[in-house]
């Protein structure tokens, strides 16, 4: 377990032990010092534990291992190791164009206002479908909304390779249209090969660094 998890666990245990003392000896709250202790132990510390716990879970839900821990997502994890630079997701993951530890979240979150909240709501829907619904086959999984160029431009906008790339500048109308989301980066004949999980049996895989192997199935 990572350090934040261990520290949170330690705080929870200490808080529970202090509460246990008050439950067994509630009489100590009769004194002024006891009242202050009661306020800390029965109000402040549980609030801090709840806040830290929420932050911990939200941070953990951004991690690549977390997304790939459901078996429906395993092929998507494997697609990150395809040995072909034309595969967009694999090229981004293997070359650390996205943080390897948060590869899924970096591309699939929403960089608009309340985007992180919307991404979490989608995540809760995934959990519901996984446990109480009928999950579709991995190759039948579709995005809720068409992929918005905004998510690509969050990193690429202003980058020299993006703004001055030969293919991007060949047609002067291309970049303005892509920036206005009028044409999609992914489905306009440009970067169409993304995960392609239905074709994983036809491709070669990169063995990967130990770090890449740790984050993918």
């Amino acid at each position, binding site marked *: 377990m990572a350090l934040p998890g261990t520290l949170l666990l330690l705080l929870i245990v200490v808080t*529970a032990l202090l509460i246990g003392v008050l439950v067994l000896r509630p009489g100590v709250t009769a004194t002024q010092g006891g009242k202050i202790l009661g306020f800390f132990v029965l109000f402040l510390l*549980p609030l801090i534990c709840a806040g830290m716990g929420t932050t911990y*879970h939200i941070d*953990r839900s951004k991690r690549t291992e977390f997304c790939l821990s459901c078996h429906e997502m395993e092929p998507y994890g494997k697609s990150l190791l395809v040995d072909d630079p034309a595969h967009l997701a694999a090229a981004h993951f293997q070359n650390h164009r996205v943080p390897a530890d948060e590869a899924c979240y970096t591309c699939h979150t929403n960089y608009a206002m309340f985007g992180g909240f919307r991404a979490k709501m989608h995540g*809760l829907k995934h959990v519901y479908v996984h446990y109480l619904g009928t999950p579709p086959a991995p190759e039948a999984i579709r995005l809720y909304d068409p992929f918005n160029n905004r998510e690509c431009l969050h990193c690429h906008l202003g980058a020299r390779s993006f703004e001055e790339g030969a293919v991007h500048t060949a047609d002067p109308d291309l970049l303005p249209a892509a920036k206005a989301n009028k044409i999609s980066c992914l489905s306009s004949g440009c970067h169409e090969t993304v995960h392609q999980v239905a074709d994983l049996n036809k491709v070669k895989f990169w063995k990967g660094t130990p770090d890449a192997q740790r984050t993918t199935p």
Partner: protein
Amino acid sequence: MLSAQPLERRLQLAGSLLILGLLIEALCVVWTRPIAFVVFAGFGGILLAAGILVYLYSLVSARVAPSKKK
């Protein structure tokens, strides 16, 4: 053992709810499945909130001894 004093009994109830909530929170930190957050927020969060509310209620409902008039 439950105290005979109503205030202390409420504090014990609040403490018990909080311990249960913290126990669930601790389990969810160790449990790495995606449903852990749902259990953390759904069960642990409700127990923690209930414990804190019972504690606050015990404070506002505590009877204070009337002050002596001069």
